């Protein structure tokens, strides 16, 4: 565990990549399943109102997401740092997110939840943006086992 290692990568997401990535890491029900749930709730008069609300939120969330604060489309447009080149760095001391005008370093003991999903490892840094790594890149660099071991020791695995 004490062995030194270091891995970093740079990325500049465009809006579509950013939204797709955050959607794929999200634990929300996908659009199709949410719509099906809404339709299913329409069949009973007691749950019809909930079904209508569910469908409205699903449709609005999908096609008019700019009205919902905090969704990834809005984050991309509103947050200055997301559109700049970002460097994600992991080493035996902790994780670093660096972009134009902002630098965040969090020691391993300060990480939050982490998850592996759709080929990505995301590590939450409470109050800060999550740290993102492609699992294949980590494996190729030979640091995957060390990173995941530290995530298991210090973080909380995100429930699906």
């Amino acid at each position, binding site marked *: 565990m004490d062995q030194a290692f270091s891995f970093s990568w740079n990325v500049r997401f465009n809006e579509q990549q950013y939204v797709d990535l955050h959607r794929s890491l999200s634990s929300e029900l996908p659009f199709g399943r949410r719509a099906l749930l809404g339709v299913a709730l329409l069949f009973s*008069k*007691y*749950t*019809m*109102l*909930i079904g209508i*609300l569910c469908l409205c939120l699903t449709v609005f969330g999908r096609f008019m997401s700019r009205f*919902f*604060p*905090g969704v990834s489309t*809005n984050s991309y*447009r*509103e*947050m*200055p*740092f*997301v559109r700049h080149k970002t460097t994600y760095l992991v080493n035996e*001391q902790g994780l*670093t997110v*660096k972009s*134009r*005008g*902002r*630098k*965040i*370093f*969090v*020691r391993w*003991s*300060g990480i939050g939840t982490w998850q592996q999903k759709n080929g990505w490892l995301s590590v939450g*840094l*409470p*109050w*800060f*943006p999550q740290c993102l790594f492609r699992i294949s890149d980590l494996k190729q660099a030979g640091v995957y086992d060390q990173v995941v071991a530290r995530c298991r020791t210090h973080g909380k695995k995100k429930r699906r």
Partner: protein
Amino acid sequence: MSDGRFKFSAEINLTEQQFVMLNRLTSPKRWPFYITATAIVALLMLLHPFTFLVGVGLFIIPALAIFAPHKLLNCQEQLYRKSPYFRQQPVLSVSDKGLSFRTEQVEAEVLWSKPTVWQEIHGWLKISPAGFPACWFPVPDLKRAGVYDQLMLKCREFGVKFDSDEANRSDSGKQFRTIYTTYGPPISCHADDFTFGETSDNR
């Protein structure tokens, strides 16, 4: 100091109660109104079988707000308890270049950039740069250190006052959209000049 350079650091000790009071976006005066209005709508919905379930769901919100506010999702009580940082008495710094936030576990810094929101409340100056935790500074200490006026110049240059006519808003999402619309694309005043304070690139 005369050439516009300044720096101020303070170890901030915010209790949960202070944190909640200072961070609440809606004015505490309006809070009872929202709770009462939600409870009335929920009660009315309970009277009809078709809206009964929604009423039950809606009733949970004011009940939690009154009896167990820390259980509400993303409420300030929960944010304080979940965040390891404020219990560690962070050292917050502000200078002519930007802001920094330091605890045992975190070293973070951000250069002055748009959009930033600032607010003076109950003797504290709150500065919230986008994508960075809100930084709190005691106004009397800033004045005593002789940096208050210079800091306010920076706040006005890069930010807008919370809830001002300039950026009238009720939630953080709307707040950032308003600012972005008003000021155009975000700009960093020092471009790629990253570091100030103790955080170094060669870590």
